[in-house]
């Protein structure tokens, strides 16, 4: 791999990591909210 490709890989890794974490949290939040909604019904 060339140096330029390694440099380009850095923002991809950082944002992929952050987005994956956010997605994980959002899914967890949605699952809990659905659970609460069902309990209230």
């Amino acid at each position: 791999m060339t140096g330029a490709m390694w440099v380009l890989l850095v923002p991809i890794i950082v944002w992929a990591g952050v987005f994956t974490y956010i997605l994980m949290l959002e899914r967890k939040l949605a699952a809990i909210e659905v659970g609460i909604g069902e309990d209230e019904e």
Partner: protein
Amino acid sequence: MRLLRWTHRATTGILLALATWGAMVYVRPAEGFLYPDGARIIILHVPCAWIACLAYLVAAWYAVRILRSVGRGSRQQWRRADDGCNAAMELGLVFSALTTITGSIFSRLQWGAFWSWDPRQTSILVIMLLFAAYLVLRSALTEPQTRARLSSAYALVAVVPGLFLIWVLPRIVNTLHGGANQAVIGGGLDPQYRLVLYAFALPGFLGLFAWLMQLRMRIAALEDRTINQR
């Protein structure tokens, strides 16, 4: 409240987009680097490391609040602080992992190997393990009050070697990061890099940290509510 939340998210997104654009397009290749374009990595790598340090301090602050209120204050008070401590440690793990990965790419371009056991590299690895150990300890305890007390005591104790590894060790031993420390902290940074790092990247990452903390703590609060209902 909803408007404020979306304004915060939009501002953070814009700042982070500007930081990425700045790092990849705006700044010029830096002189004095083995691979001058590799210096662009600093703009995303350094804020990740700073946020990991901030996570440590936030976790320690919540840990003090837990130890002061658990068994004395209201249940709500220490549960909220416990959620905050857990959220900060989890975010610390995420950002220290990103620091390690981006740092090893920089290391490959600048020093010729992904890993050189440089004191700074070793210290971020140890810090990442300290964050991970907290989460392992928490998952091993089930009773909420004991879990809050023991894990917050650990978070408070772990902050001492953590801060030593971050601020003291790399300054008392020879490290490959010597020049970088001088450039970033000592004011030797190129004005273009300074602008992108301090005007876009740092505020953007701070906004991201606040957003993720808020999201993580909201999940924990809802989990507590579900448990209490059952």
